[in-house]
């Protein structure tokens, strides 16, 4: 299904938006870079460049040199912002503690998120990073970009910010790293009015929803992740920009249980595409995999000789619920036992495909905090249809929010609230009966208890009548 925009989309043309000429953008040589030293000594950071992986230090040095060579009137914040940032980082390495001050009242008019105040606590030593605010820019659906847009965005940030950015933060947004307070409103104006681009969520808001590329490029997508994310981002604009939640709240959309955006590990509410009918099997293609005519895993492991493909060893015996077997040369699947691990579909994509009656599984309560332990989502809704305008899903979301906003303590995530009150209470609130799939491991977490009204006769019984039938 093609994207149906909520309003006409603006066409961005870099030639009309550009701030810098080609000469300004390529204003240093590799030779100059080799001999370039920033104004601070950064021995530990230099060390980071020596490892096998590309280093942010190398990128930051390029940006520092680039800014050194730009004319002074071509940047609206200090030229040596990147050099001071690296200098302060070296100081933090030396002293083993951070020098960033965290938080503040900075923001843009009408928004309670999207801008995060950052200040150096040693501004006399590093004056160019006295302010180093972060701006979150709502990424595009599926992270598909037009280069006209990306180049315009980079020019804007070079001109009004540090030029350092992060594609993408773990929530999904584009992160602009480091600018001064007086640049915030002009950046916001240009993003929204010129680039037709909104800020993302931060603080006690709905965070920028993120999704995999879904049906746009992937044969396994069971739901239109980009459409769902676009619809819910628009529908919940107030929740995204005006904070009234007890803490952060994240939605993430995975098109299939392969989970490329890892919603199950990171989102307070994870939407994972699934099917409720049977896996589609092309028995001829199964034979072709067995016969070696089709390379398994789409050729992903062909760099090494793993021997002949063995369906028994590589697929059937690896099925976690052992719901597959060969019979008369045909692959059989006991579909009701399938847990959607996706292994067989991933190994034999031309033989096995998801069913056609598709929708979402909804899981709640994941979090991945830095200081305390991470927690995975718990399956709450095994299957729900997911079709525009997603009213059934919105109804579910709002029931959950209502309870969390009412009962959640300050800075308590949904997963923690469910743990504090019990899964049983959560299920009562959202009006769902408990199901075996919600239990993580039978008997180890027996959090579903019978209630007196659920048991015929309640807690009282006639012991004599019972003993008449059951001797001691």
């Amino acid at each position, binding site marked *: 299904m093609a994207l149906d925009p909520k309003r006409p989309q603006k066409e961005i043309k870099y030639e009309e938006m550009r701030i810098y000429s080609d000469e300004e953008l390529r204003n240093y040589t590799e030779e100059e870079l080799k001999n370039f030293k920033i104004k601070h000594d950064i021995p530990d950071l230099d060390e980071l460049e020596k490892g096998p992986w590309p280093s942010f230090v190398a990128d930051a040095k390029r940006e520092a040199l680039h800014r050194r060579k730009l004319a002074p009137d071509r940047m609206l914040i200090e030229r040596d912002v990147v050099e001071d940032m690296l200098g302060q980082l070296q100081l933090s390495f030396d002293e083993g503690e951070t020098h960033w001050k965290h938080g503040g009242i900075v*923001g843009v008019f*009408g928004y*309670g998120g999207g801008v995060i105040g950052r200040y150096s606590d040693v501004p006399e030593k590093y004056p160019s990073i006295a302010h180093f605010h972060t701006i979150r820019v709502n990424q595009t659906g599926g992270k598909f970009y037009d280069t006209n847009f990306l180049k315009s965005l980079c020019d804007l940030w070079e001109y009004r910010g540090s030029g350092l950015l992060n594609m993408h933060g773990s929530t999904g947004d584009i992160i602009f790293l480091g600018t001064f307070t007086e640049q915030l409103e002009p950046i916001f104006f240009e993003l929204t009015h010129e680039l037709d681009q909104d800020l993302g969520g931060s603080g006690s808001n709905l965070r920028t929803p993120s999704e995999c590329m879904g049906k746009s490029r992937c044969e396994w997508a069971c739901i239109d992740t980009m459409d769902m994310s676009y619809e819910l981002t628009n529908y919940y604009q107030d929740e995204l920009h005006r904070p*009234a939640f007890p803490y952060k709240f994240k939605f993430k959309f995975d098109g299939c249980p392969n989970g490329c955006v890892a919603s199950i590990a990171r989102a307070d509410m994870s939407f994972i595409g699934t099917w409720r009918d049977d896996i589609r099997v092309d028995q001829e293609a199964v034979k072709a995999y067995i016969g070696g005519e089709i390379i398994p895993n789409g050729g992903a492991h062909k760099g090494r000789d793993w021997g002949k493909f063995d369906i028994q060893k590589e697929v059937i015996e690896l099925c976690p619920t052992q719901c597959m077997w060969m019979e008369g040369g045909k692959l059989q699947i006991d579909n009701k036992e399938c847990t959607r691990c996706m292994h067989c579909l991933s190994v034999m994509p031309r033989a096995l495909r998801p069913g056609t009656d598709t929708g979402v599984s909804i899981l709640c309560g994941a979090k991945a905090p830095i200081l305390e332990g991470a927690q995975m989502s718990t399956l709450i809704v095994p299957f729900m249809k997911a079709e525009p305008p997603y009213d059934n899903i919105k109804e579910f979301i709002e029931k959950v929010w209502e309870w969390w906003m009412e009962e959640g303590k*300050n800075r308590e995530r949904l997963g923690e609230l469910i743990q504090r009150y019990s899964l049983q209470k959560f299920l009562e609130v959202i009006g769902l009966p408990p199901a075996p799939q919600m239990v993580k491991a039978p008997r180890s977490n027996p959090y579903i208890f019978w209630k007196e009204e659920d048991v015929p006769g309640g807690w009282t019984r006639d012991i004599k009548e019972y003993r008449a039938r059951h001797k001691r």
Partner: protein
Amino acid sequence: MEDIKKAILEFASDSKKSKFYFKDMEKAVQKLLPDAKSREIKKAATELVNEGTLIYFSTGSSTMYGLKGRGITEDPE
């Protein structure tokens, strides 16, 4: 709406701390106006922010409200 705004301002000026969570503000408003719904309180708070009376204070991970002019109101330099 005006009643709710008044109750918010009362709490914002009298609360022990100069920055407070939405939930604490909500509880204080509902003590005075038991029928005030969470959504109405949020709308009133947003109006006060837009009028420049209340301010947001964000740590990046969570957001608090405050009365402009009380506690830290400028960049903490």
